[in-house]
C-alpha cells in the first residue's frame, strides 16, 4: 500500500457512514418514473418522443441538447403518459417525461462484447450514447471530459473513490462489489485518452476497498491504488488532483489543463456497462439512511423513481419517528427536499431522512473573526470577508475576492462558531454574478 496523501485545508466532519457494511440491494421496478431532461451539467437533453408512445427499457427518450449534454433513456418499459414541466429536485420546474410501467413488457437483454477490443473512437461514442455523467454528484457529462484536441499534455486518469461526504456509502459498496467493472471502466478511459497512468484514489477509512484493489492490481504496471488521508472535501476534483499529484488546477480551469482526467468510481463502472454491454445509464446506487428510515442501506434503483416511491420500496419510514428533514445527497453538499414527489436523478447519491435531533442546527451569532473559515477553506478564500460584501449585496467585491472559485463544500459554515451562513451566501453571490454576466452578454 502506498503512503496516504492529502490536500491543505479541509476538516473532519463525523463520517456517520452507518450503511458501509450493507450490500447493495436491487429494488423492484417502480410503476412510474419521472425522467427530467436536465440531469447533468450543460444543455438540457431534447425529448424525441410524445405522449402515448411506447418505450422499451433503455430506449432513448431524449437526445443530447448540445456537446456539453447527455442523452436520457427510459429506465422502465412502458408508455409515456405525461410530458411537460415537473418539479426538479433542485427546486425549479423543468421539462420531464413520465413513463408508466407496462408490467408485461420483456426485459431488455444486453449482450457482452469486449470493449477493450474496440477503437478509442468507438469506445467514446458508446460512452456518449450511454448517457453516463459524473455520478459523484457533479453530473458533468463524461464524454466531454474525454474530448481534447491535445492529448500530449494528458498523462493521468484518476478514479475518485474518496467519497468524503458523510453518510454516503454507494461508491464504497460499488468498489467492494464491482471492482472488476470499475477497473475495466478505467482501462477503457485510458485507452480512449491514450494514457498510460491510472490512479484509483480511496480514502483510508475504506481500508477493505483499498486492500481489494491492491490485491487485484498487484501485477498491474499502469494502475496504482492511492490511499488518501480521510478529510473533507478530499473528493473535490481540485483537492483530489492536488493530493494525488501535487498539481493545482488554476482558477476557472479543468483537470485537463493540468493533464488529468478525474472520474468517479461508480461512473467508471457504468462506463464499463455502457461500452461492454451497450447498457445505458438507467439505474444507480443510492444510500438510504437517517434515523427515520426503517431499513437503512444501499439500494440499486431505477432513475426517475420518486423519492417517496424509493423510500417505500426500500421499506418506508418509521411510524414513531417524525421526519424533519430529507436530504438528497450528503449532509455537507446535498440539498434539502421540499417535496417527496421529485425523482431520483443521475447525480443522487443518497437520500437521508433525518429526525428533529439530526436536523437541529444551532442559532447564529455575530462573526467572532476567529479565522476558522479561512483556515479550513480548501480553495484559500476568505469566507467571512466575502460574507461582509454579500450582506450588502456588493457582488463586485465578492467577485474580486474570487467567490467564483468557491466549490461550495460547506467547510466554512460547518466550522463557523457563530453558525453564519457563509457558503450559503457565497452560493447566492455566485448565482447573482452568473445572472449578471448573462445579462451583460445580452446587451
Amino acid at each position: 500500500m502506498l503512503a496516504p496523501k492529502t490536500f491543505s485545508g479541509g476538516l473532519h466532519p463525523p463520517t456517520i457512514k452507518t450503511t458501509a457494511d450493507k450490500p447493495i440491494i436491487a429494488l423492484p421496478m417502480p410503476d412510474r418514473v419521472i425522467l427530467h431532461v436536465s440531469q447533468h451539467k450543460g444543455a438540457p437533453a431534447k425529448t424525441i418522443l410524445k405522449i402515448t408512445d411506447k418505450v422499451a427499457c433503455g430506449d432513448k427518450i431524449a437526445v443530447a441538447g448540445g456537446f456539453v449534454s447527455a442523452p436520457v433513456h427510459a429506465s422502465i418499459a412502458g408508455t409515456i403518459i405525461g410530458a411537460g414541466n415537473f418539479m426538479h429536485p433542485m427546486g425549479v420546474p423543468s421539462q420531464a417525461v413520465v413513463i408508466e410501467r407496462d408490467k408485461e413488457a420483456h426485459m431488455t437483454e444486453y449482450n457482452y462484447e469486449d470493449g477493450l477490443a474496440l477503437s478509442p473512437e468507438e469506445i467514446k461514442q458508446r460512452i456518449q450514447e450511454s448517457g453516463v455523467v459524473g455520478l459523484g454528484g457533479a453530473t458533468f457529462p463524461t464524454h466531454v471530459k474525454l474530448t481534447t484536441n491535445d492529448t500530449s499534455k494528458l498523462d493521468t486518469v484518476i478514479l475518485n473513490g474518496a467519497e468524503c461526504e458523510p453518510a454516503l456509502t454507494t461508491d464504497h459498496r460499488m468498489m467492494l462489489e464491482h471492482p472488476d467493472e470499475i477497473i475495466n471502466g478505467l482501462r477503457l478511459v485510458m485507452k480512449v485518452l491514450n494514457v498510460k497512468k491510472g490512479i484509483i484514489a480511496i480514502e483510508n477509512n475504506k481500508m477493505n476497498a483499498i486492500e481489494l484493489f491492491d490485491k487485484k492490481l498487484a501485477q498491474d504496471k499502469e494502475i496504482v491504488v492511492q490511499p488518501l488521508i480521510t478529510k473533507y472535501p478530499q473528493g473535490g476534483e481540485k483537492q483530489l488532483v492536488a493530493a494525488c499529484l501535487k498539481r493545482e488546477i488554476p482558477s476557472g480551469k479543468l483537470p485537463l489543463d493540468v493533464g488529468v482526467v478525474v472520474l468517479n468510481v461508480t461512473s467508471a463502472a457504468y462506463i464499463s456497462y455502457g461500452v461492454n454491454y451497450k447498457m445505458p445509464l438507467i439505474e444507480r446506487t443510492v444510500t438510504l439512511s437517517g434515523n427515520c428510515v426503517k431499513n437503512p442501506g444501499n439500494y440499486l434503483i431505477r432513475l426517475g423513481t420518486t423519492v417517496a416511491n424509493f423510500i417505500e420500496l426500500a421499506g418506508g419510514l418509521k411510524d414513531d419517528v417524525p421526519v424533519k428533514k430529507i436530504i438528497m445527497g450528503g449532509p455537507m453538499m446535498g440539498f434539502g427536499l421540499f417535496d417527496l414527489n421529485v425523482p431520483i436523478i443521475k447525480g443522487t447519491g443518497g437520500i437521508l431522512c433525518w429526525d428533529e435531533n439530526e436536523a437541529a442546527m444551532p442559532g447564529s451569532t455575530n462573526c467572532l473573526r476567529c479565522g476558522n473559515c479561512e483556515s479550513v477553506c480548501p480553495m484559500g478564500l476568505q469566507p467571512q470577508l466575502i460574507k461582509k460584501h454579500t450582506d450588502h449585496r456588493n457582488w463586485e467585491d465578492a467577485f474580486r475576492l474570487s467567490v467564483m472559485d468557491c466549490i461550495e463544500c460547506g467547510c466554512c459554515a460547518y466550522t463557523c462558531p457563530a453558525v453564519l451562513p457563509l457558503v450559503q451566501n457565497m452560493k447566492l453571490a455566485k448565482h447573482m454574478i452568473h445572472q449578471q454576466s448573462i445579462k451583460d452578454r445580452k446587451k
Partner: protein
Amino acid sequence: MIAENHAAVAKRLMVTSSPHIHSGLTTARVMWEVNIALIPLLAMAIYNFRFYALTVIFASIAGACIAEFAIQKFFFKTKPALADGSALLTGILLALCLPPTIPAWIAFTGGFVAIAFGKQAYGGLGQNIFNPAHIGRAILLASWPVYMTSWIKPGIDAVSTATPLAFLKDSLKDAGLLASLSESGKTAVEHTMLTLNISFSDMFLGMGLAGSIGETSKIAVLIGALFLFIRGHIRLYAPISMILTVFLGAYFIGNNLNFAIFHLLAGGLMIGAFFMVTDMVTSPMSRRGNVLFGIGCGIITLLIRLKGGYPEGVCYSILIMNAFVPLIDKMFAPPKFGTGGNK
C-alpha cells in the same frame, strides 16, 4: 406508509441550503471553555489575595454583566445574551488584571466601561477593535492611577509593597543605587529579587509576589492555555512570538540571562500573551499575521517597560497592536488555491 401522507410529510419538512450539519462548536461553547480555562488563575488569585481577590472578581463580573444586560435590553432592544458567557469572560479577564486592593466600586466601574465602551459601543460581540478587558483597565488606570498602582504582598496582613517590575524600574532610575550595586558586583535584577525576597520559581508559581490578582502565577496561566490549545480555541503563533520577542529583546538589551528571565516571568506578559493576544475578535486571522501581531506586542511591551513611564506595558502594547489588526489582515490574505501558493 409514506405514499398516503407524503403531502403531510412534505409540509413539515425543514428545507435549508447545505451544509446540514455543524461542528457543534458555537460561540457560547468557545466562551464558556475560555471561562473554564481561567479557573486555575481564579483559584491562584483567591489563594493569594483571599477576600481582596473575591471582591474584585465579583465586582468586575457584576459590572460587566450588568452593562451587557442593560445595553442589550434597553439600548439595542435585543434579547440579552448573557448566557453566551462573553460578558462573564470580559469581567473575569479584567478582574485578573486589577490590583487586589482597589475598592469594589472601581472594579465594578471597570467591568461596566469594559463592556459599554470596549464592546457594546462598537455594536456588540465580535465588532470591537480593542480587547474590552484591556479597555476597561486602561480607563481605570487613567482615572484612578493611585488605586491602580498600589500593591500588596499576598497574605493576611496585606503589607504594601512594589511589583517586581516597578521595583526594578525604580532601581534602574536611581543612579546612586546603581553605582553602589556595580561596586558590589550585583545587577539590578538580583537586587530587586533579593529585596523583595522572591526567586524565579516564586515568580513562576506566583508565590509571595505583588501584582494584579491574576498575573502573579505563570503556571496557572500555562495550565489554562494548555487546555485552550488542546481544545483548539487558541493558536500559539501570536503568544509564542510575543513571549520570544520580549525574552530575546530583554536578553540582548540587558545582555544578561537573568534580566531576560525576569522580564519573562514578571508582570502580565504570560496572561496577556495567552489570554488577551489570543482573543479571536481582536487578533489577526492568518498564521503570518499572528506572528507579526505577537512580535509587535512584544516590542511595544519592552519599549514601555524599559523606556516608557509605566513599569508594565502589556496592556497598552496589546491595545496598540489591536489597532493594526485590520491592516495586518489585509497584508496576509491566505494563498488562493491554484496560484501556486499552497504547499
